[in-house]
């Protein structure tokens, strides 16, 4: 237990140390990565631990993003209330979608989530007089602060992203090590047997989906507040695929896997798009190769080989 807690606190401390040494460019990238990692952490809770593959998580990410961005712009709220509002939007959205989509399973679940999120995307386009559609809008600089700390400056932005990440990773660790977390894994392994043991799978799957949506919403709201831009592309299918990619790369069903995966994928795309304009090719190839060669991802493979204790 101490070893596990030590590892996670150590990773957070390392990221804090990086704040002081990283050059500007990587400093900004890493802040972005940390926010997106929170998204992937939540995705992994549903996909890696509960065994539900959603193709519509962009809906929850976008609910957080638009919830925060639009409320701040409309009512002149600062970052604090904006974040909470966006977060609540995502949680409610996840609850509503969960009640409907969890009636299905397997392939149908993937298609249903995909379609609901497509409806969400089309909604952001249709109401473009409010959302400004594809073009998106910028959250005014003076609103992006909490307790008069300016979150649009590089230093505070990194620290805010790190704080969010730290909270998220510790909550996730607590969840997966709790009895609820064990039941989620049991549902992944054998839903019928879990039901026979007297647990209600639907309730636990709904819990997992809402928690996962909450992570996605927190990440979306923080992304809007920290980087100041809200646009329809964040609601598109591509943003549903990204966390799947991060999780597959880093390690399905591991706590720190999403961080490893997000860093690896972010820099792979970054380097690839520096070399050629065909970066989508790398995303596609990475997906195919990963699912063929290492379906458990980087950290998942390490756990199998060397570190059975990794949560």
């Amino acid at each position, binding site marked *: 237990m101490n070893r596990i807690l030590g590892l996670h606190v150590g990773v957070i401390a390392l990221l804090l140390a990086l704040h002081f040494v990283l050059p500007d460019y990587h400093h900004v990238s890493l802040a972005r990565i940390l926010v997106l990692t929170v998204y992937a952490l939540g995705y992994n809770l549903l996909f890696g631990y509960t065994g539900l*593959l959603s*193709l519509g998580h962009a809906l929850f990410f976008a609910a957080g993003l638009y919830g925060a961005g639009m409320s701040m712009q409309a009512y002149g709220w600062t970052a604090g209330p904006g974040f909470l509002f966006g977060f609540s939007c995502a949680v409610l959205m996840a609850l509503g979608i969960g009640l*409907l*989509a969890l*009636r*299905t399973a*397997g*392939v*149908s679940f*993937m*298609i*249903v989530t995909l*379609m*609901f999120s*497509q*409806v969400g995307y*089309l*909604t952001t*386009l*249709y109401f473009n007089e409010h959302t400004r559609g594809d073009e998106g809008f910028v959250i005014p600089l003076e609103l992006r602060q909490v307790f008069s700390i300016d979150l649009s400056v590089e230093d505070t932005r990194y620290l805010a992203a790190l704080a969010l990440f730290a909270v998220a990773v510790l909550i996730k660790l607590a969840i997966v090590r709790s009895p609820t977390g064990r039941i989620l894994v049991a549902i992944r392994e054998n839903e019928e047997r879990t039901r026979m043991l007297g647990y209600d799978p639907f309730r636990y799957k709904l819990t997992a989906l809402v928690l996962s949506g909450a992570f996605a919403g927190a990440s979306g709201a923080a992304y809007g507040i920290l980087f100041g831009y809200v646009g329809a592309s964040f609601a598109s299918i591509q943003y549903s*695929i990204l966390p*799947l990619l991060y999780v*597959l790369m880093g390690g399905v069903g591991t706590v720190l896997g999403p961080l490893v995966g997000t860093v690896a994928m972010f820099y792979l795309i970054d380097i690839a798009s520096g070399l050629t*304009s*065909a*970066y*989508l*090719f790398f*995303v*596609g*190839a*990475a*997906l*195919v190769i990963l*699912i*063929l060669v290492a*379906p458990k991802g980087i950290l998942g493979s390490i756990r199998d080989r060397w570190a059975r204790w990794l949560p």
Partner: protein
Amino acid sequence: MDYGTFFLIASMEGAVQAAVLALTALGLSLVFGVMRVVNVAHGEFYMLGAVIAYWVSSQISGSPLLGFMAALILSPLLVGVLAAVADRLILKRLNYDPEATIVATIGLLYILQQAALTLHGPVPTAVAAPFDFYVRFPGFGYSGYKLFVIVACIALMLGTWFLLAKTRIGLVMRATQYDRETAQAFGIPVDRVYAGVFALGAALAAIAAVLIVPTQQAYYLMGGDPLLLSFIVVIIGGLGSLRGTVVAAILIGMSDGIISTLFEPTLAKMIATALVALVLVFRPTGLFGTVAR
């Protein structure tokens, strides 16, 4: 133009769309029915069909009819071979696991889309129609080529039905669909059947694209809409039911064609997508489907 004529034109457009959609969705339904694989890259096979049609017909200058005929043969052939290779290299190794194949075909989608963008370019390109005449109706003229598309789609669907229901190849496919292990035990080369079905499904999408591309343009992002619509059709028709797929394609294609000429397309798509998701939630076997074994 009076309202009746306008409505008539809208339903003609709907019929063209329904015919092409039925053919595309038939490919998706076939792959899902036999292999239980949800092919997310299906729209990209459609797109490749159109892009190859452009490429072939631009190589054969002079007669658009000759170029069109060449495209009609070459395009599905090339796309089919590509699909068979993808099946052998990727899907087979995943043992056709439903979730893993979805992830892999998403990867394939990105690879094919990027390949088309890099090789074909970002600009939509027009393909000349093989012939150009108008059929006179009382009150308006209608493109003869579009009527040909409807006829050709119906012929191809009948051909596919004949292949599945009346030939030995079809029998082998249906046997594999019914029970993979028993089929294997009876000496049916299941691997080859799967590769063939995946190729056939992709080829159907490619033919549909070759037929429709003279009325539209070849574009590297054109696969998105047919994919979503095919999904909708296959679900409404009942996952795995070919007859349901065709009926649903006519229903959805006609109404989509009519609705989007009369209302705003984004709103129409929004409502249609939400309705389909709800159908799948409350009637998981679709409107015409039977309970899966």
